[in-house]
C-alpha cells in the first residue's frame, strides 16, 4: 500500500515538474528567445550576488555561533602540552585559506554578475597573461612553503618518540572489538611482554607471566593520569585496526594488531580545571540532557574513543579519562592491585611456582600473625593454594612449601597454638594419593619445628559439590601466646 502511494506521489511530482518546464518554454517562445535569455541573465546575475552575500555572511556567522563547541576555541583549549602547537598550525592555515576563500568567492560571483551578457556587449579576447600566471603561481607556492615548514616542524616535534633520558610514564592501550584494555606498568614502571597466543578468558591480554615485568602490571577501566607527567602510550590492537583517540588532548594514532605504535603527550589540565573553564561559557551552563540535575560543565569528562572503523561496535568504544593531581593519582595507584597477583597467582597458569615473592613473604607473615588471635578460632587461616608438581612422583611446589614454612614459623612463635587440617577430595578420586600428599604437607611442618600436638587431622571427607581438585584447609584451633 505504502509502495503504491510512493509510486503515485513520484509520478505526480514528475508531472508537475514537467509542466513547470513546459510553461517556461512556452513563455520563451512568446517573448522571443533572445529577450528571454537577457532577462534570465539579469536575474541569474542577481542571484549570484545574493548568494555571495548570504553565503559569506552565513559562513562567518555560523562559525562564530558554533565557535565554543570546536576544539581549539572558546573553553576548548588543549589539555595537553603539544596541543597548542597543533592548534596554532590550524589557525595559521585558517588565516591564509580564509583570505583566499573570501577573495576568490567575491571575485567569482562578482564577475559572474558584472559580466553577464547584455545586449550589444562583447566579450574581451584575453587568451592568457603570462605575468599573471607567474604571480598567482608564485604566491600560493610561497604560502604553501610557509605552511609546510611550519607544519613539518610541528609534526616532527610532536611525533618524536621518547629518548633514553626522558622521564615518562608508559601505559599500554589495546583496542579490541569493542573496547579498550588499559594496562599500567606498576611499581617497576615497565610494561610486561604479551603474546596473542596466550590470550584466554583468564588472561585477556595474553600477558607472558614468565616475564617479571608483568607481575606488577594492572588493568584499569578508566585512564587515570597525573597532570604534568609525560606519558608514552603504547598502542596495540587485538583483532582488527582501531585508533586511540583523545580529542581534548590532540592525541590520535592507529592501533594495529601485531605492530605496536605509540603517542607521547603530557596532560596539562586536570578534569576539574577543564570543567572550570567550561563553566565560564553559556553553551555549557545548561543542564546536562543526560542528567538534568547537573549542569553540562559539571558532568564533563575527558573520553577515549576509537577513530578507525572496526566493525559494528566502532561507535561505542569509550573509556573515561581522568586527569588528576599527583596526590590523587598516587592515592588511586595505591588502591590498584596487580592483575597477576589478583587473578593468576597460585592458579594453574602461574609459572612462578618455585617460591613466594619477597613481598608475598612479608605480607603472608603479617597475615598469619594477625590471624592467630582468639577471635579467629574456628576460622580458616590465610593459606593459599597447596599445589603439587608431578604425576606419579609428586612434590610440593616451591611456593606452597614456602607458605607452609611461614605457617610453621608462626606456629612455633605462638606457644600453645594449634590448627586443624581438613582434607576434601573430589567425588571419584584416589584416597591414597590424597593421603600421601597430606603426609608431604605435614612433613614440611614437622621438619620446620612444629610439634605434632599442634596439628589436628580431620578424617578425609568427600566433596559434595562439583570440584576436581583435592583441597586442604587449615582452621585455627588455638591461638596460643606469642613468645
Amino acid at each position, binding site marked *: 500500500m505504502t509502495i503504491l502511494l510512493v509510486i503515485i506521489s513520484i509520478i505526480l511530482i514528475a508531472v508537475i515538474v514537467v509542466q*513547470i518546464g513546459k510553461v517556461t518554454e512556452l513563455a520563451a517562445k512568446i517573448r522571443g528567445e533572445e529577450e528571454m535569455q537577457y532577462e534570465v541573465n539579469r536575474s541569474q546575475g542577481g542571484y549570484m550576488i545574493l548568494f555571495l552575500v548570504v553565503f559569506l555572511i*552565513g559562513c562567518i556567522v*555560523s562559525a562564530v555561533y558554533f565557535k565554543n563547541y*570546536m576544539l581549539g576555541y572558546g573553553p576548548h583549549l588543549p589539555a595537553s602540552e603539544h596541543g597548542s602547537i597543533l592548534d596554532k598550525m590550524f589557525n595559521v*592555515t585558517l588565516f591564509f585559506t580564509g583570505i583566499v576563500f573570501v577573495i*576568490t568567492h567575491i571575485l567569482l560571483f562578482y564577475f559572474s554578475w558584472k559580466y553577464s551578457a547584455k545586449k550589444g556587449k562583447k566579450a574581451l*579576447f584575453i587568451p592568457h597573461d603570462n605575468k599573471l600566471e607567474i604571480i598567482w603561481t608564485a604566491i*600560493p607556492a610561497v604560502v*604553501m612553503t610557509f605552511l609546510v615548514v611550519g607544519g613539518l616542524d610541528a609534526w616532527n616535534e610532536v611525533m618524536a618518540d621518547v629518548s633514553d633520558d626522558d622521564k615518562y610514564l608508559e601505559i599500554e592501550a589495546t583496542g579490541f572489538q569493542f573496547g579498550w584494555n588499559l594496562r599500567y606498568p606498576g611499581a617497576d614502571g615497565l610494561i610486561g611482554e604479551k603474546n596473542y597466543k596466550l590470550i584466554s578468558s583468564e588472561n585477556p591480554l595474553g600477558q607472558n607471566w614468565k616475564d617479571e615485568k608483568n607481575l606488577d602490571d594492572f588493568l584499569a577501566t578508566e585512564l587515570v593520569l597525573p597532570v604534568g607527567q609525560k606519558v608514552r602510550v603504547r598502542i596495540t590492537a587485538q583483532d582488527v585496526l582501531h585508533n586511540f583517540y583523545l580529542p581534548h588532548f*590532540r592525541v590520535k594514532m592507529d592501533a594495529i594488531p601485531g605492530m605496536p605504535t605509540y603517542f607521547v603527550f603530557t596532560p596539562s589540565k586536570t578534569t576539574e580545571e577543564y570543567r572550570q573553564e567550561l563553566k565560564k561559557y553559556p553553551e555549557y551552563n545548561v543542564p546536562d540532557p543526560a542528567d538534568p540535575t547537573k549542569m553540562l560543565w559539571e558532568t564533563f569528562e575527558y573520553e577515549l574513543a576509537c577513530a578507525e572503523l572496526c566493525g559494528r561496535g566502532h561507535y561505542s568504544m569509550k573509556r573515561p579519562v581522568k586527569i588528576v593531581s599527583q596526590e590523587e593519582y598516587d592515592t588511586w595507584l595505591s588502591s590498584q592491585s596487580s592483575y597477576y597477583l589478583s587473578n593468576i597467582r597460585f592458579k594453574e597458569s602461574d609459572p612462578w611456582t618455585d617460591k613466594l615473592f619477597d613481598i608475598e613473604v612479608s605480607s603472608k607473615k603479617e597475615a598469619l600473625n594477625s590471624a592467630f588471635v582468639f577471635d579467629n578460632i574456628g576460622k580458616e587461616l590465610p593459606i593459599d593454594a597447596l599445589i603439587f608438581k608431578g604425576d606419579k612422583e609428586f612434590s610440593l611446589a616451591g611456593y606452597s612449601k614456602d607458605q607452609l614454612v611461614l605457617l610453621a614459623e608462626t606456629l612455633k612463635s605462638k606457644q600453645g597454638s594449634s590448627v586443624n587440617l581438613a582434607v576434601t577430595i573430589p567425588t571419584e578420586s584416589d584416597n591414597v594419593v590424597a593421603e600421601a600428599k597430606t603426609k608431604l604437607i605435614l612433613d614440611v611442618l614437622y621438619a620446620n619445628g612444629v610439634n605434632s600436638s599442634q596439628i589436628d587431622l580431620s578424617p578425609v571427607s568427600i566433596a559434595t559439590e562439583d570440584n576436581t581438585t583435592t583441597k586442604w584447609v587449615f582452621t585455627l584451633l588455638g591461638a596460643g601466646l606469642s613468645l
Partner: protein
Amino acid sequence: MANVLTAAPHSEEDVLIEQMGYDDHFHEHHDGDKFQSNFITTYIFSQDHKMIAKQFLITGMFWGVIGGLMSLVFRLQLGFPEESMAWLKPVLGKWIEINAETGMGALSPDFYYALVTMHGTILVFFVLTAGLSGTFSNLLIPLQLGARDMASPLLNMMSYWFFFLAGVIMFISLFLNTGPFSGGWTAYPPLSALPQASTGSGAGMTLWLISLVFFVVSVLLGGINYITTVLNLRTKGMNMWRMPLTIWAFFVTAILGLLSFPVLASAFFLVMCDRGLGTSFFLNEIFIGGQALDHVGGSPVLYQHLFWFLGHPEVYIIILPAMGIVSEVLAVHSRKPVFGYKAMVFSILAIGFLSFIVWAHHMFMSGVNPFISNFFVVFTLIIAVPSAVKVFNWIATLFGGNIRFTAASLFGIGFVSMFISGGLTGIFLGNSAIDIQMHDTYFVVAHFHIVMGVAAFFGMFAGVYHWFPKMYGRFMNETLGKLHFWGTMVGAYLIFWPMHYIGMAGVPRRYYRFDTFQSFSQFDDMNKFITIAAIVTFGFQLILIINFFYSIWYGKKVTEKNPWGATTLEWTTEVDPGHGNWAGKLPVVHRWAYDYAKDGQDFISQITPLKEGEIETH
C-alpha cells in the same frame, strides 16, 4: 534557447568540411554495416562510442540514485536516532530490528555500516569514475578530435559490459543474508579479510572484491582506448596544443587510471589470498572470535599503501574530467577563451604527475614512520599550487566575458565555488600536524564530499546539460535546470558546511550513533538539520532525472548543428550523428579550440582556416 547571441548561422562549416576535409573513404566501407543493423547492435551491444557513452551515463545515474538513497537512510539514523525506522521494514527487511516491547524499529549497526560502505563504493567507482569519465571520454574524445570512433570499438563495448557486470554483482551483494560488505569503501584488513570480524566481511566482501575486479578491467579497457585514440586518431591539423581542455583532462585521467588501477587489483588479489588461501600478506598476530589465528608476518599497512596508491590518483581521476568539462563550458558560455590554456594544460599534467606521490597523506596516523610522512606533506601541499592556478584561470575566464547563464554554465560556476571550498580544506588535512586531530573526523567527510560529492557532480551536471543536445538532438529544459542548480547549490552547502564544525569539535566519522560520548553528543540539532537538507537536496536531483528522461523524447528539438555557438569539432557534425560521426569527409583543424571574441567575431570554429595575416592564438 541558446544560439541567440551569435551572428549568422554557420553552415559555412559544412562547406569547409566538403572542400578542405580529409577523405578517409569511411562510408564506402561502413555504410549499413554490422554496427547499426539491428536493435541489439544499436542499443544493447553497441560498439558506437556515442551509444556506449549514453549507456555509461544512464547506468551511472541509476547507481547515483541508489547510492543517494542509501545516504538518506543512514542520514535518517544519524539525524533522528530516537525515531522509529519501522516504516522502512517493508524495504529493508531484516536490517530494521524491531524492539518487541516498544515496536520501535532501529537500523541494525551492521547494516548502517554496510550502507556507508556501499554508498562510498558505488559513488566513487560506479558513478564518479564510470559514470563521469566513461560517459564524457566516450562521447567527446572521438567527436572533439575528428575521429570516426575509438581505436577499438570492440574493447570499448566490453569496457561498458564489464562495468555492467560489476554492477550486477554488487547489486546481488545487497541481498545477501549476511549482508553486503560493511568495512568502509577503503576495505582495510584485517576487518575486511576476516569474516569473523563482521558479518559483511563474509560473502559480502567476496562479492565486493569480484565486482571491483571486473570494474578494474572495465576502467583499463576504457583507458586503453582513450589513450590510443588521443595519441593516434586525431584528425589532420589537430595537434596536441589544439586539443580542447576536455580532451587533455580525459587523456591524463586515462593515464592515471591505467597506471593506478592495476595496483588496486594487486591489493585485492592479496586480500583474496589472505581470505581464502591461508597467506598472511596483511594479517599478523590476531586474536578474534575466541581464537588465535595462524596468520603471522603480514602488515595491514602494506594494504593501505597499495590501496591508496590507487586511492589518491582515483580522486584526481574523478575531478580532472569535471575540470575539463568546466573549462569548456565556461569558455563557451562566457564567449571568451579559457584563460591561460597552456597554464591549464601544464596544471593538468602537474596534477596528474603529483597525484602519484602523495598517497600516504591518507596514512599519516596509520603507524608509518613519521619521517616518511614529511615527504608526503611536501608533495601534497605542492599539488595545491596547480589546483589554485586552475581556479584563478577559471575566474579570469569569467572576467570581461559576456556570460550566458544556462544550467550548464551555472553548474560550471558552482563547480568553481565548490572546488575552492573543498580544496582549501584539503590544505589543512595535507599538513600532517593538523591531520593528527582532523584525521577520521567529520572534517574529512566535509572535505571530500564538497570536492567529490559536489564539485565533481557539478562538473558532470554541467556536461550533461551542455552536451545533451549532442547526445539526443534535443535540449533539456533550461528552467528546470536552473531550479536544479540553485536547489543543489544551496542544499549542498547546507549539508556539508556544518560538518566542518562537527569535525572541528572532534566528532569521528563512521559512527552509527554519537550518544556513547558526551563530547560528541552536542550536535543533535545540527545533525537533524543536515539530514533534512540532504533529503531536500536529493529531491532536487529528481528534477534532473525527470528533466533528463522527459527531454530525450519530448525536449525542444535542436534545429541547428551548433546551438551553443561553440568552436569545437563535435558541433560540426549532424545534429544526431550516425556511425562514423561525419557524414562525408573528416574535418581538418586549423586553430585551437578557444577563438571566442577574436577580432570582433563572436566565435571562430576550429575548422576555419586562418585568415590572411591572422596569427594563431595559443
